[in-house]
């Protein structure tokens, strides 16, 4: 069995990341976190806002903030499709913190779906950037 697989993180504007990895962890709608390793059975899932971790073949980790999208696994290849995704190293931490505070402020007064997803995005960003909350 091959012990690496190809991973692609694709947004409509560009291919964010493409390379070989030993494991990918992401989070599907309702299904919690799911990890893929080489040789995983063909899989299709819809994703929520999450912090996706790609464990590269050389031992390092690529952190990606994925704001919804899909994951497809087939033929030892993991493709993550997302309309909005960003690499952890590209996250503007200050902005994410501010967005989180704003969302929390709104949620204190009312139950707003937009604010909840904004909070989810902020969490995904901060997690991916490895920053404290």
């Amino acid at each position, binding site marked *: 069995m091959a012990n690496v697989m190809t991973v692609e993180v694709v947004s*409509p504007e560009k291919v964010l990341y493409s390379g070989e990895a030993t494991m990918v962890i992401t989070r*599907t*709608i*309702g299904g919690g976190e799911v990890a893929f390793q080489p040789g995983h059975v*063909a899989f*299709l*899932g819809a994703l929520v806002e999450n912090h996706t971790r790609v464990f590269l073949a050389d031992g390092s980790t690529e952190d990606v903030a994925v704001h919804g999208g*899909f994951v*497809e696994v087939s033929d030892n290849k993991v493709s993550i499709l997302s309309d909005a995704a960003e690499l952890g190293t590209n996250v503007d931490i200050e902005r994410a913190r501010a967005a989180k505070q704003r969302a929390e402020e709104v949620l204190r007064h009312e139950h707003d779906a937009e604010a909840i997803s904004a909070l989810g995005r902020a969490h995904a960003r901060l997690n991916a950037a490895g920053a404290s909350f």
Partner: protein
Amino acid sequence: MAGGQERILRGRIQSMQATKKITRAMELIAASRIVKAQQRVEAAVPYSEQITEVVRDLSAAGASSESPLLAGRDEVKNKCYVVITADRGLCGGYNTGVQRAAEGEIKADVVAGKGYEIIPVGKKAEAYFRFRGYTLGQAFQGFSDNPSYADAKAIGQHVVALYASGHVDSVELVYTRFISAGSQEVVLRPLVPLQRDTVEGGDGKAGSTDGSGSDYEFEPDPTTILDTLLPRYVEARVYAALLNAAASEHAFRQRAMKSATDNAEELIKNLSIIMNRARQDSITTEIMEIVGGAEALGSGKDEQVRYVELDLDAAFGGSSAGHPAPSTTPTGDVQTAGSIAVEERSNTNTTTDSPDAGENI
């Protein structure tokens, strides 16, 4: 008067040169933007390919979703056209091509007794259809030369909502497909409902047909995935269309501005020839007048010949410094013989200052 014509021509040449500078600048800008737009078209391909593949895998796996986006309607009563044009003009036949294609379809629909809804994308489409009295749906504009995914998303969501509400029964995209910098074509592509051939057609490319229905695991269930996926798919299609349109717009503008620059050059060349000829004509006329004037005086007095030469200098130098103006001549009846002859006469009358002026020259 010959001098007046020369001045007019000079003005025209100057304005033409200014125009040429503008068109040249626009040409260069468009040329540099084509490359960037082309890269964006290419960068969007992986996503749209992948999402097409996922849709295909899902339908191969038998995810026969109840999603209205996938099921066509039995009777198509109202069609919706998303007409993608530029926000600005000066791009040759780019806007008119798309508008004409869309208008042809709409007229055919009206004849067939169907309703229509136009979603103009870009200011030009809106202006065109509004002027001609078509009823318009929501307009999108302000991003034609550099569309972002958020723009495509807004259009996609609007279109999906229109379709889902039953307001329209099918949606078509009218845009200019970018094939290469030298060739683009206006295309009309069905967007919603998504049919099998639509899905495989992708962005005008034939899809691979190895729909190998490998057994997938789904999380959550296939139907839910498909339901969330299809709107994304529509957005991706719209995005691809917008990027194609933007690249085409730049290509069209570059070509239009190149020919405008060439035309300006040609015009400048022709006008210069005409202007030079007019100037030459007026000089020739003046010489003829001088020679005629000298001959009219007839007598071979040396002194007078000398005066004629001096006046020739004055005529070409442009400044008749020191010479009395023709209007001051005491003998008004001689004016018809030409200004030089008149000055001759007046010089002979007032012999005090003329020789001095001649020495000054």
